[in-house]
């Protein structure tokens, strides 16, 4: 317990430093945040146009899209803000940049992924709440479920990133595969789940767990159910455990490039 508190204090210290560092360039920070929110608004307009013309996709309407897109954006934003290096973990591994983290007395994975903040993530995170507010499903207890669902969806998403990017321990540079996996996760997460047959749904709960980042959290937010909460909890715990296991297994194979590096 004392160890956990120590790591939590350490994480908070890193996040504070990252945020202060990002805020140092205030204009750039605000441009990124506002730019990302505008970007999301414009992207979502496509779905408004679509549902204005075609009304619904197998019972899935524009209001459902607001919630799904919102929770996905908030979860994505949260991971970008708090664990920005999860997006580039494969590069860090392949280029031997784990040396720096290995030489310090802190959990390697946690320290590595928390060491970068992507400022635009703040825009995604805030936008998600606005999207939920506009969905027509807003209630105060729904908001509490939104926060919980965002945390669990972010856990699944971060775990998925760690899992796919840790393959770099075995296969070296794999920027293309990483971006393919990321794009697949986000694309499948945004589209209505009612589009997919049972085989595709099986993939969306396991191989590319996009359903646990979009459709299932959205279902839980709209109305509480033990089933959707159970799926989310099981998914978050399962994928996180697997991600940590794979990273630690890979770490045994890690070879330092002995390059001189400075982490700033």
């Amino acid at each position: 317990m004392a160890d956990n508190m120590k790591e939590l204090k350490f994480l908070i210290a890193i996040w504070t430093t990252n945020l202060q560092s990002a805020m140092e360039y205030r204009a750039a920070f605000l441009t990124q945040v506002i730019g990302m929110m505008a970007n999301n608004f414009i992207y979502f307009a496509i779905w408004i146009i679509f549902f204005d013309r075609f009304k619904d996709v197998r019972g899935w309407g524009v209001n459902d899209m607001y919630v799904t897109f919102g929770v996905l954006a908030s979860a994505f934003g949260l991971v970008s803000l708090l664990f920005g290096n999860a997006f580039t973990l494969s590069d860090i591994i392949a280029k031997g940049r784990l040396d720096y983290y290995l030489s310090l007395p802190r959990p390697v994975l946690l320290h590595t992924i928390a060491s970068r903040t992507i400022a635009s993530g703040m825009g995604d995170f805030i936008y998600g709440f606005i999207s939920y507010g506009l969905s027509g499903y807003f209630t105060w207890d729904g908001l509490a479920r939104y926060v919980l669902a965002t945390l669990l969806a972010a856990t699944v998403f971060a775990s998925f990133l760690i899992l796919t990017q840790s393959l770099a321990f075995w296969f070296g540079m794999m920027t293309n595969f990483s971006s393919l996996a990321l794009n697949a996760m986000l694309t499948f997460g945004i589209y209505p789940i009612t589009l997919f047959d049972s085989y595709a749904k099986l993939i969306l709960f396991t191989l590319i767990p996009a359903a646990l980042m979009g459709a299932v959290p959205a279902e839980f937010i709209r109305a509480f159910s033990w089933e959707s909460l159970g799926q989310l909890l099981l998914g978050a715990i399962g994928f996180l455990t697997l991600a940590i296991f794979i990273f630690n297994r890979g770490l045994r194979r890690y070879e330092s490039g002995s390059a001189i590096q400075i982490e700033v």
Partner: protein
Amino acid sequence: MKKYWSIFQITLINSLAYPGELVGRSLMIIPFMWIFYQLWKVTFSAAGADAGAISGLTLRDTLWYLMLAETIELGRPPIARTMSENVKDGSIAYILNKPYDFLLYQFSTAMGETIFRAMLNAVFGGLTVWWLVGMPNHPEGFLIALPAILGAWVLHFCINAMIGLSAFVVEDVSAFTWIYQKLAFIFGGMLIPLDFYPQWLQTLAKFLPFSSAIYGPSRLFVTPTAEFFINVMSLQLAWIFALTILLTVVYRRGLTQLTVNGG
């Protein structure tokens, strides 16, 4: 012009230096086309148009339209980001003092990077769509749309270069590139063909340069008529002319604002 042709050739050959990278990047179009197929299959079915057409497009037309739209979009290199990086790391100083025109140099490298990238996207995207809905109704449409596809990349270059030049003032241009991309998604008809839009939005979108860069060539591919060809090409050439002049003016003004970092 010989030196720009040489720059184009060098970049073209360079783009083949890492075939794994090139192929890997192009595979992304496969899940996109598959998910588009799922969405539009359900939508056409719900609209009672399984074998018919919505606003003049069948399911097969829609999928081939989207394949070409994605090919154009995924094929173009991130010019604005490259120019922004050049400004941020100071390497712009070495590019500006070389004996070539900065914009023509950027254009030659952009086209060199685009060709194989787009070809592979078209191959993977085309094979996926062929497997899902069959061959296009007008395979010859690809050749007829080819000038419009090249024009689309010129248009994309003009707009992206202008965004890139804004790095001379603001340094980081990522927010502008995101917004441009999403405007191109909406007004270019990249995820939904413009024909499915409400009439007022169609009229507005078809006039803007985004539609000349995505909708025009893609629709020409599935409806390759002489009349439509003339419409698409004349609007596209008008936009290329206007944006080239604007880009030249912006570049000249931008040079006076540039601050070189390090170098």
